[in-house]
């Protein structure tokens, strides 16, 4: 089963290596990892999607906790949350196929971010299912290049993960 972890870390140079090293050393499988700074510039947030059963997940989060640079970990898989991923796809599009590609883009609410003679570059945001469906829809035209950001996620409603606690605002 896949779990989505929201991990707050200190924004220090070694932190990514520490987290990545921990996963590879202990044999945990990372499906995706997205990282960027938060509203507090000294703190970064990672969204890590990891595969494993309950036992593995418990070990992952306990081992992560041991890293001095890791401030907080939340497994938000089971809680209602919003998750998004962004993809850029460069796809073949000649005079004959361009219209169809643009139609598909419209269906998926993707933006055309670059326009070439032989190809189009599209940007699409959504959950992983949507991104995969989008990719599949474009496959027949010939995908030249594809890049995904990995998933980012946030709890829904009044719940949030910040450095003090994952808590409910009353």
């Amino acid at each position, binding site marked *: 089963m896949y779990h989505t972890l929201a991990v707050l870390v200190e924004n220090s140079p*070694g932190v990514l290596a*520490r987290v990545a090293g921990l996963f590879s050393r202990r044999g945990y499988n990372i499906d995706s990892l997205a990282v960027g700074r938060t509203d507090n510039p000294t703190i970064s947030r990672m969204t890590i999607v990891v595969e494993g059963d309950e036992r593995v997940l418990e*070990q992952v989060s306990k081992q992560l906790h041991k890293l001095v640079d890791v*401030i907080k970990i939340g497994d938000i898989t089971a809680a209602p949350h919003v998750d998004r991923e962004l993809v850029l796809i460069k796809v073949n599009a000649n005079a004959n196929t361009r219209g169809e590609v643009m139609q598909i883009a419209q269906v998926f609410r993707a933006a055309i971010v670059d326009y070439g003679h032989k190809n189009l570059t599209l940007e699409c945001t959504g959950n992983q299912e949507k991104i995969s469906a989008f990719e599949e829809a474009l496959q027949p035209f010939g995908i030249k290049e594809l890049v995904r950001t990995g998933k980012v996620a946030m709890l829904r409603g009044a719940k949030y993960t910040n450095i003090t606690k994952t808590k409910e605002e009353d």
Partner: protein
Amino acid sequence: MKMSGAEILIDSLKEMGADTIFGYPGGQALPIYDALYDSDINHLLTRHEQGAVHAADGYARASGKVGVCLATSGPGATNLVTGIANAYMDSVPLVAITGQVPTSLLGRDSFQEVDITGITLPITKHNYIVKDIRDLGRIVKEAFYVASTGRPGPVLIDIPKDISAGEMDYHRNGFLDLPGYNPPRKGKEELLNQAFKAIAISQRPVIYAGGGVVSAAAHQELKQLAETLLAPVATTLMGLGGFPEDHPLALGMLGMHGTKYANYAICDCDLLIAVGVRFDDRVTGKVESFAPHAKIIHIDIDPAEMGKNVRVDIPIAGDLKIVLNQLLERLEARLAGAWQDKVATWKKEYPLEFNEKGSGLKPQQIIQEIYRLTEGQARVTTEVGQHQMWAAQYYTYTKPRSFISSGGLGTMGYGFPAALGVQVACPEETVFDIAGDGSIQMNIQELATAVDYQLPVNVAIMNNGYLGMVRQWQEILYNRRYSYSEMKSPDYVKLAEAYGAEGYQITRQDEVAEVLQAAIQSQKPVLMDFVIEREENVLPFVPPGKALNEMLG
């Protein structure tokens, strides 16, 4: 006050109570060494950086204080690596300081540049490279704090030369910036309640105690717990000395070379109270058959140890001393019953034993003799191999921090430099390194350090002419094919004399006590070459992957 980075480093070391450093200089550490020249910190120059880090580790294990070692960049730093890994595996509080090329040369494969923070990432509790002199004072303090609190461990600080040589206006302040670091302290009430229930219904409780008891200084509490529950106590290699082995409830060591009665008690108990341990494979044997009938309560400072190797019913994370006191407050004394009788019978029926016949020297006997002549008061370090296991089995440890050995990493060459650190920490005490002929040659150069600083450690080499533990495995598991496990030694007497130490070779039983006595009395380091029975085995032996009750011997 205007101070250089090196001066800030030394001031911060003193602020943290460090007065002793084991180290070895080199180009990128020169500013630090220049500042040491004027300081009152006691610096000991070893003959190899591995000697320095093991000595700092021994110093820490004997004193309970943070050990400090210092090396230059590149090869100096990489020579520390084994010692850092060793301290990490055994949770020893250590601060390792390395010189580094100036920040402007970082990342360019500069002369003697090595990415030591990268290399030590998986073997340190935390590490730092200082890139701004304004962070230096805080980092040193954080390093000591992280190394010595929670589950202790090594922390490395890499200091580029321009930082140690740079200057700033510096004033001490107690500021630490560790928002992600909060080791647990008290045990959770609901888990304690579960523990009380499990204890109340148990008929056959056993305590399994490890190195955590020693590092948390919870040995009194452990003793009280055992006496309250009349629960026998099996100790890991790291836990030896955490429970007095002359106590009627002591089962000695458990695991691969544990006593039969300790392993039988584990196999038969219905409640296992695991205290300051990590269920290492050398302890559990085949995990599926470890304590098969028992409910397991696991008390440890590190939550990540809970359920890592073995399923645990009641995991209590917290400071051992605090959690044990939480338990003791509410536990009532028990009366002896059938279980205590059964354990006593096992102890009588299956004592630790060896064949005392024959004219050759028996290592077990030599160790018993060391125990007798030091009245059980020595600090014993060991190298790694058969002699280490005999030292664990046949010297009756009664005080915490009296047995100092490389448990988790099993580092040959640890014991001798560690003994030097122990002697520095405990100048008035008798220190023995129980060594093997293979291991002692791994850091023999530290004899020069011992002589130089007049550290009168006693090295008792159990010389079997073999990498004995390897030979034992080859005998039992590889059909006596002794592939590259036989080795010759130098003349240890001459070697000792060449270094300015004392040396003895002992081949007869009637010489043993005499030589040991002379060594204990001597003010010099002494190398004793005990020529022992060559193919003596360590028994009992649970072959790897077998259950604890499938012992040989």
